[in-house]
């Protein structure tokens, strides 16, 4: 029996030991039994070259978080935040900076304390198109090589500066009424949009397939839109603090009004003030195309609107093509503008109001649908020394312009050195273009404003008096052809424009 008892104890001991050992083995091999980490990549996102995007991976680490590593395709990636060591779950945030257009990948590998790893890949669709749908309220740069899409009426608000690098393409989404898109530079905001003759800044419609690469390659024209397609988006509006003559002012408040086309619920549309030397920044070598969509009845957006813009602002080398409303319109202000080309405007080419007191020098106007010049004066009790337009060449035919110069008794302009050609005749062979019937009222002004120095190519059988009605013919010298003219614009300045590159200028002899 003893043996039996001893055997039983021995067997019990051994069995217990075995159990204990196996238990010990269980404990020591526990890490092998933790689940491997799981990593979840976010859904595909959009990115832009050189613009860092944050990508958040959600992880759970059964065995406790240890480390992560990241690799990237078509860009660079760094981990900017991760869970603390040992954490069972959390998120890893990776900053991905795309380097090239295409599909970017971010591969994150997560390891736990046992060295178990798991990875996941996030996809970033990289392009060079940026959708802008909110107002600009801080210092912002639109960078070369990119296309910026205006998702609505985008205001650069007071205090903010928008810099647009040379070669940038800005495209407005399609729309009319409250759906119309535009870029509006408010009072006390600054725009620096300085293109160059080799890298102009293009403002056009999203329908335009032009790319920054096209601009780099010197192809400034639209690859798919004809230069008479208008009304696809709004336009560019720059507003400032320079004096305007918009209403009477009894002296105790600054005259300010709301710019045409912008509802007054948007106070970014206010312009006018007391600072004649105000600066809204600098705009050079920009081409604005296919805009002018309707905001309300008789309420469209001009290609370039300058409301109360001060003389500290630089505006040079502007092309406006196929705008459904006016090409360039001034509402008061003191800014001087040089080198403007307006082609196929749906309304007037050059429009001035509210006692603009600046100079427009060197202008080419091709085929305006309404007046090449619609010039007006003060609308309030403030009057200025008026504005000056000089050195302009106007090709009249093409879109039906009838009044070549529209002035009235209130107009405060001095005009000199104009060259008109391409004058039209109707089916009976009579002159189809005239000067505003209010010209004699303008000519009778006592402020010394005058229109002088016109040269014109007059169709055979007709005289200068047939076209330059109301007595303006006395200022007109007939020339046989534009090569004989001694006045007009220096068209060679506009070599960079779509109008020139398309051959439209050379086809009319410019």
């Amino acid at each position, binding site marked *: 029996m003893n043996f039996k008892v001893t055997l039983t104890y021995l067997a019990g001991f051994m069995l217990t030991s075995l159990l204990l050992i196996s238990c010990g083995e269980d404990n020591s091999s526990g890490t092998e039994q933790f689940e491997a980490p799981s990593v979840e990549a976010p859904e595909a996102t959009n990115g832009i070259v050189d613009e860092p995007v944050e990508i958040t991976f959600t992880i759970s680490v059964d065995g406790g978080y240890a480390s992560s590593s990241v690799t990237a395709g078509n860009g660079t990636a760094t981990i900017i935040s991760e869970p603390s060591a040992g954490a069972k779950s959390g998120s890893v945030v990776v900053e991905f900076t795309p380097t090239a257009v295409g599909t970017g990948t971010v591969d994150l590998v997560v390891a736990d304390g046992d060295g178990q790893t798991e990875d996941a890949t996030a996809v970033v669709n990289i392009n060079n198109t940026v959708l802008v749908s909110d107002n600009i309220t801080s210092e912002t740069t639109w960078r070369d090589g990119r296309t910026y899409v205006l998702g609505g*009426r985008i205001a650069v608000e007071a205090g903010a500066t928008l810099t647009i690098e040379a070669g940038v393409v800005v495209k407005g989404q*399609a729309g009319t009424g409250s759906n119309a898109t535009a870029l509006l530079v408010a009072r006390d905001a600054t725009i620096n949009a300085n293109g160059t003759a080799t890298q102009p800044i293009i403002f056009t419609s999203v329908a335009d397939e032009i790319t920054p690469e096209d601009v780099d390659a010197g192809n400034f024209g639209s690859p798919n839109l004809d230069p008479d397609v208008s009304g696809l988006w709004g336009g560019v509006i720059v507003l400032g603090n320079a004096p305007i003559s918009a209403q009477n002012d009894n002296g105790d408040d600054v005259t300010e009004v709301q710019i045409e086309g912008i509802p007054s619920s948007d106070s970014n549309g206010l312009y006018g003030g007391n600072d004649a030397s105000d600066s809204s920044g600098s705009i050079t070598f920009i081409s604005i195309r296919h805009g002018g969509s309707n905001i309300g009845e008789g*309420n469209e957006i001009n290609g370039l609107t300058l409301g109360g813009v001060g003389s500290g602002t630089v505006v040079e080398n502007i092309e406006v093509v196929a705008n459904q409303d006016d090409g360039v319109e001034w509402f008061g202000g003191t800014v001087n503008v040089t080198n403007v080309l307006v082609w196929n405007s749906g309304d007037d080419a050059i429009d001035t109001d509210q006692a603009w007191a600046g100079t427009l020098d060197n202008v080419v106007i091709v085929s305006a649908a309404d007046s090449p010049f619609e010039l007006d004066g003060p609308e309030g009790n403030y009057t200025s020394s008026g504005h000056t337009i000089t050195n302009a060449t106007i090709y009249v035919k093409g879109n039906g312009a009838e009044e070549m110069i529209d002035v009235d008794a209130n107009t405060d302009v001095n005009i000199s050195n104009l060259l008109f050609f391409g004058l039209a005749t109707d089916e009976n062979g009579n002159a189809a273009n005239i000067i505003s019937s209010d010209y004699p009222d303008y000519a009778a002004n006592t402020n010394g404003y005058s229109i002088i120095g016109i040269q014109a190519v007059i169709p055979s059988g007709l005289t200068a008096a047939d076209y330059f009605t109301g007595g303006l013919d006395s200022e007109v010298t007939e020339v046989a052809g534009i090569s004989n003219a001694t006045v007009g614009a220096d068209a060679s300045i506009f070599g960079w424009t779509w109008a020139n590159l398309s051959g439209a200028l050379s086809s009319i002899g410019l």
Partner: protein
Amino acid sequence: MLFLVCSFSINAFAQKGTLRGTIIDDETAETIFGATIYIQSTGTGTTSDFDGKFELQLDPGEYTLRISYISYQTIEIQNVEIKEGEVINLGNIRLNLAITELDGVVVTSQRVTISEAAIMTAKMNSPNLVDGISAEAFSKIGVSDAAEALKKVIGVSVEEGKYVYVRGLGDRYTQTMLNSVEIPSLDPDRNSLQIDIFPTNLINNMVITKTAVAEMPANFTGGVVDIETIDFPQEPIYDFSLSFDYNPDMHFNSNFLTYDGSNTDFLGFDSGTRELPSGADNSDIPTPISGNSSQEVYDFVSKFNPALGPYSSTNFANYSASLTLGNQYKVSSDNKLGYIMSLTYRSLSTHYNNYQLGEYQNQPDPAAYDLIYATRQNGTLSEESVLLGGLSGLAFKTENSKYKLTAMHLQNGESTGGNFFINNSESAPGQSGYTADSYNLEYSQRSITNFLLNGVNYFNNTNWEVNWRSAVTLSSMTDPDIRKTAYTLSLTGADPRFNAGAGGFPSRIWRYMDEVNYANRLDITREYDLFDLPAKLKFGGSYVYKERDFEILSYNLQFFGSQPDFEGDPSEILVDENLYGGGGNIYYQSGNPDPNPNAYNSNVVNYAGYISNEFNPFEKLNVYVGLRAEQYTLRHTGRDALFAQGGSGNNLDNEKVLDGLDLFPSTNLSFDLGDDQNLRLAYSKTIARPSFKELSFAQILDPVSDRIFNGGLFEIGGWDGNLTETFINNYDLRWEKYMGLNEMISASLFYKTFQDPIEIVRIQVQQTSSEFQPRNVGDGQVYGAEFELRKSLGFISESLRHFGISTNVTLVRSEIDMTEQEFRARKNSEKEGQNVNDTRNMAGQAPYILNAGFTYDNLDLGLDTGFYYNIKGETLTAVGGGLFPDVYSQPYHSLNFNMNKNFGEEGKSSLNFSITNILDDSRNEFYQGFNTADEIFSSYNERRSISIGYKYSF
């Protein structure tokens, strides 16, 4: 129902005749419960029920009735003739209190329609100030809709033929109710209902309450117009009427402008030809640049109706027809069932051949006084309007209660064609100068569907009355496919074309508004004695929920490239070869972001409770005091354009924009001066709340007026965006004397103070387009006097007893403190010699309203006839300031003639003849400047028209 009608018809055509009547207290006009009606010759009789009503079945013959009630004088009615199978209704039988011992009074039965007199009695005995007009008066003055009828009521004017103004206060201060429950407006821009949608044959009466009492909603100041639809009748009605209205200048006119609508236009709705093309409400519609194929663009553009202009055709005269059936039956000894059914159809054709509209401005030069025009339009406007209305009601009456169920539907469709010459002047600031030929096509469809369940229960010998109402109203306004096409004209005679900066590109718009309104109301009245005199305690409450959906969708026609050569005919535009994908380049561009800032949804929850007591502290003084509490919460869902484009703009998602619990005390005192004279004194506090649209971030471009409306929540210029309600204190004093059936004289004074009144203000900084915003302006006050006289000329000579005059005059002065901004704008534009004040008239407030009638009524001949004259003084309708001159509506001298003649057996046929606008006056609104001639804001002439109507009662 059919079964019931059939089975009861048997009773109705039994051998006997039916005699009905209502017993009322002569002094208070209250019905008498339990009066004894006794037929001496037969020894039979009955007692009146809680409504004072009684009914007897009698064999044909002539009877004498004796009517008695304790403490009242017994009266005897002789010569009451009962005919086989017919119902004789004696109407209201008045009992006088037996103050002195007198023998019974004997009256002779005569057939009198009593409703107009009942309004007068109600007016006399109402504890508060009421005026009204009854169905009886409608036919007398020859009117076909409620708007026309209301013009005859003291202190009431009707704007644009449809909006009711009481005491010249704008429609913001007038509330419309249908059967004592609120009813929504059918115009997104107005607070009150277009009243012309109600044909008079559906209306029993309209009562205008001018001083507040606790049981009425607090949101009125001028008055509440309560339209009561026809009730089931005391006697069987089988009426048919037909009328024609001929206007020699408008009708059978070959220049009438029309366009092809749908085949249900004659029923007042569009069957689909003007419907929004499928897919057009997507934010991305097919365009040449949307990525769709040219075939898809072509297919989409082809879905738009190609008609962009009207054509001339000869129109017809106005005509209308209506049919009304009604009767009541005894179900058992104490229960009665009644029904009413009415159908009405009206077709109106209006043609103005010289309709003028203008936009004028002040000149900047302080020494230049003349107003200069920015835009003038003149041309032809033709409208065809159809109104179809139906009402059916069922009423059930038991010994102690009555129940009423009414269903009503009104359907109105108005098709408009216009052709205007537009002249824009470049001399005006901000204008470019052009001429254009404009074509307009519009359709406006309005409908209201209303269900009302009303019960009145009496307890404890009518000492307790419980009156409850529950109503559902569905209303809808749709303007499908408003088309505007304006060719900009050439200066030199070349072909016209579209110019965005001048006449604009062709556009089309769809506008929708739907509203649902649930109104529930409970009123409990307890009659008791206080100071040994009768008194009434009233308490109750109401719950109103209303919700509105509003949306505008707009589309602009565009050319993808140069325009084709046009001749100026609107039908040459949307032809296949001009469409993109069809060989041309026309497409439509959407003006509708997603979400749409031109859309909103708002709802209101309004709980109200009140308690009031009407009592006589001593016999000659009636006091009615009450207190009402209203909890009003308005929530809004909408956004501005910046939010809609994806920016950080304003967005409200069912957020509270108005939330207030307010108390509204009211006191009405009435002194009985004896000799049927009353002196009344009233005070009340009321409220005017901003509308759904006003409390919003909406930016709505109105296609019709081209004006942009900005919601009141926007901060613009000096306005802080905090639009609040207006509180008004109302004081009234009135003396009145009642002289006999339909004769009275009264004189009233009233005074109202307005705290933060809301006006639609023109935004001064916007000079190129017309922008408006509702704002609280400076405090205002209104004071005025009213005078009314209705008198038969019988007092001059007995031979003149059939002639009568009725006249009422309202004189009002109003003053409002200008806001700082408005005053500065006006001061800046001050002319030499002008001295601008910082106060002005309240917008919409007429300085005087005059109604006068000269009538000849002869019951024996069945003839009533009269001349009616109506005028309203020059009224500020659009507040200007700065560049923009004020607009005033001009007095319109309306003189109409009307004649009614009953003839045939027992006057079952009646003929109506009327002439309207005898003076051939124009309706004008003018701009007014300083020291210069007025200029036209709008002007048109409705011309003279002659109408003939025939009515037959079976």
